[in-house]
């Protein structure tokens, strides 16, 4: 069943039409959410206008962690079923994941200056997120080096699995440790953000998620095409 889905030809048949849908759908939702977040919501009673940064910061944080979740799942699938498409999916998730982690750190810092009175503090949440960003960079370098040396992708996949250690630490850092960062506002069942402020977040969150999907598909297609070129070159050189 998994092999049927993981056939590159079948993958491209689905990915080609899906890419523009995710791309433009994501852009539309994101821009609407950002516009609504900037103009259609009241300021917060304490933070004032800076609360609007949350519409970008929270989705970036979720996708920064979501990117590693997809690297971990794809690496797991690759290690068990050895399917090359899983390897490509893991590699394609790394750059957008790192980018969203960086956006999360940058927007958080810009929010922290007026709210906390500091750009940066070495508290548990901030430090573990920064660590995740560096782990992304290490994974990107490792996966690139592995591919260039003709490796089979097993070492980056093992690294992808091992890096999962950070995800629960980031998530529970604000519960387990005293941190400067506030506790979670959103859990599966309840929210401590008033609905008047919360609603644009649904748009930016879904917009960023669709864009993340579009980026992963585009990068997978680029990797697939590059692999095809390389294989053909090798055959031509041999002939």
């Amino acid at each position: 069943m998994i092999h049927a889905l993981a056939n590159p030809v079948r993958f491209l048949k689905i990915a080609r039409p899906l890419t523009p849908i995710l791309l433009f759908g994501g852009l539309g939702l994101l821009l609407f959410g950002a516009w609504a977040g900037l103009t259609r919501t009241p300021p917060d009673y304490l933070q004032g206008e800076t609360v609007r940064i949350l519409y970008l910061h929270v989705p970036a944080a979720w996708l920064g962690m979501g990117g590693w979740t997809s690297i971990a799942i794809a690496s797991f699938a690759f290690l068990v079923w050895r399917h090359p498409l899983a390897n490509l999916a893991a590699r394609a998730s790394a750059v957008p994941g790192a980018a969203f982690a960086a956006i999360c750190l940058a927007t958080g810092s810009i929010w922290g200056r007026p709210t906390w009175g500091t750009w940066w503090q070495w508290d548990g949440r901030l430090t573990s997120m920064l660590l995740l960003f560096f782990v992304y960079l290490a994974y990107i370098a490792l996966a690139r080096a592995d591919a260039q040396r003709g490796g089979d992708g097993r070492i980056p996949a093992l690294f992808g699995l091992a890096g999962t250690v950070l995800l629960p630490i980031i998530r529970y850092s604000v519960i387990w440790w005293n941190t400067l960062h506030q506790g979670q506002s959103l859990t599966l069942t309840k929210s401590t953000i008033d609905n008047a402020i919360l609603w644009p977040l649904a748009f930016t969150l879904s917009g960023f998620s669709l864009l993340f999907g579009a980026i992963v598909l585009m990068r997978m297609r680029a990797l697939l095409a590059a692999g095809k070129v390389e294989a053909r070159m090798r055959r031509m050189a041999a002939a």
Partner: protein
Amino acid sequence: MNHWAFVTAAYVVGLGGTGAIVLQSWLAMRRAERAADELRRR
């Protein structure tokens, strides 16, 4: 302190960064798929 300066900076960084990574991925895909197509035609 004016809060809007911080909000603007955050939106420039957030939306600009997202736009940049989308554009870079799209250009990389187009370049790679064109190269593959050209090689097939030859």
